[in-house]
């Protein structure tokens, strides 16, 4: 039996659909355990992605990983789960390690594919510079799946939803305030990312980057020095010491392509590089390159994207 934990406090995220799809691909019945306030109708839709049933605890806000670990472990026991799946997002990173100790189950952190024929599972290591094949020695296993590693697939129809409570104990974490910028796309989940570096000269020049991102429906990111000097918020910093991402499209503007930067983005399916310097190392990692001044190229690209989008409707 496969158990999948998803966080549904803000609805069904793409990461949630990916994990349920992953569970389905492992074969057998898939139970989903979740917390939060999503409606039964919404949760039942997980059946379309392979869930056999959904169990929800609406009394748990999901802010305390210790509570979530108790909840998931209890349900894993109830359904005799041998595999528990998380997304390798903030929940997976906080809860899966706890659960590993609690269930005495080997943790495969940051899986990027379904298990190989020999049972090993591919994970990203060395900040994306290599992949490792992990073998689990214990009877039970926990897998946290790197966002954007597989595509959600609809294979079935709506499933049943059950409520549960009283399994999670009390929360040790008191939330005072939550700050979420409106309308922005969370970087790790984004399929399209527009990123810029020191080549943009100053924070006042990010307007065209944001415009390009909006035209494409992309998230924005930046290189480390740009976040360090405060031109952009820290959570946009990608690379070896920032967020590691693997979007379908990564557009890098005015970024030289230092090894530490590449480490966090070289899992991207397609990379476009815009740089004035034709020797910039980033071109070696790129699929499409534009040698040119961002201040001329990007406004042109924004117009081209808008023209393209207009033909799509």
């Amino acid at each position, binding site marked *: 039996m496969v158990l999948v934990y998803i966080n549904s406090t803000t609805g069904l995220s793409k990461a949630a659909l990916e994990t349920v799809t992953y569970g389905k691909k492992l074969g057998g019945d898939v139970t989903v355990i979740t917390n939060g306030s999503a409606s039964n109708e919404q949760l039942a839709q997980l059946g379309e992605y392979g869930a056999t049933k959904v169990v929800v605890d609406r009394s748990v806000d999901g*802010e305390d*990983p*210790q509570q979530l670990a108790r909840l998931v472990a209890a349900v894993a026991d109830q359904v005799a789960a041998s595999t528990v799946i998380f997304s390798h997002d*903030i929940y997976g*990173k*906080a809860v899966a*390690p*706890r659960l*590993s*100790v609690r269930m005495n189950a*080997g*943790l495969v*952190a*940051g899986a990027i594919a379904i298990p190989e024929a020999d049972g090993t599972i591919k994970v990203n*290591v*060395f*900040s994306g*510079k*290599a992949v*490792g*094949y*992990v*073998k689990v*020695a*214990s009877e039970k*296993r926990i897998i946290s799946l790197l966002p954007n590693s597989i595509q959600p697939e609809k294979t079935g129809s709506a499933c049943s939803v059950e409520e549960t409570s009283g399994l999670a104990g009390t929360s*040790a*974490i*008191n*939330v*005072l*305030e*939550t*700050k*979420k*910028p409106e309308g922005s796309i969370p970087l790790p989940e984004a399929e*399209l990312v527009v990123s810029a570096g020191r080549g943009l000269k100053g924070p006042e020049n990010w307007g065209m980057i944001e415009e390009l991102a909006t035209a494409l429906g992309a998230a924005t990111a930046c290189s480390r020095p740009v*976040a360090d000097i405060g031109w952009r918020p*820290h*959570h946009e910093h990608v690379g*070896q*010491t920032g967020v590691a991402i693997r979007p379908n*499209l990564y557009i890098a503007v005015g970024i030289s392509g230092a090894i*530490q930067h590449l480490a966090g983005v*070289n899992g991207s399916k*397609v*990379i*476009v590089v815009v740089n004035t310097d034709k020797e910039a190392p980033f071109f*070696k990692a*790129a*699929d*499409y*390159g*534009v040698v040119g001044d961002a201040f*001329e190229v990007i406004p*042109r*690209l924004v117009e*081209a994207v808008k*023209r*393209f989008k207009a033909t799509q409707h």
Partner: protein
Amino acid sequence: MNILVCISKAPDTTSKIAFTNNSTQFDENGVQYIVNPYDEWYALVRALELKESIGGNVTIITVGTTTDESIIRKALAIGADEAVRIDADPKDAYFVAMQISSYAKAKGFDIVLTGKETINYNGSQVGGMIAEAMDLPFVSLATKLDVNGTKLTLEREIVGGVQVVEVQTPAVISCAKGMAEQRIPNMRGIMAARTKPLTVIPAEAVADLSSYVSYSIPNAKSSVKMIDPSNMDELVELLHNEAKVI
């Protein structure tokens, strides 16, 4: 305030990543090890700042062999008071977490800090595992940490934003960017580090839950297609029809 900071070694970020022994082992040939940046820049420096403002003691701990003493001395030079090395090859996160939690349980620390992940295995596992083994609350990806008696106020990263939370000590915290600024050790620190206490303790036996059986290096990109900077319609067309990403 008694703070334990977990330190891991990591290959220098410019290291060439290669594998030996039929791709089953990381090739350490010519690799320089550094203190994992998240552990050093954020966890350790914030621990030192707290000690400087409210008093207390900062212990660093690593699971490693004698070759790892250079990273321990570096952390002591930055300002930690004492160091503990659990003498074993850090096989995997679970092994490391079991060793550290067993030490920490016996000592009664107020706060256990880790970096958010190592830059080699990127697992983000050790902090959560230590917390579970010690049955303590865990706040991950913290970007701010303030102490008020036994109450910790933290800012942490959440999907698409940040959150301010409170938790009581003792607690385990994983530290991310924003928590502190990197400190470069000065000569006095480096000299003092030589005489600070370093305790070496034997490892406990722990069953393996998982292991890396092999590695591979992803294929390099084939050559880049250059686009005329005045023709962005062509780029959009290629992204749509050839790459199929928009």
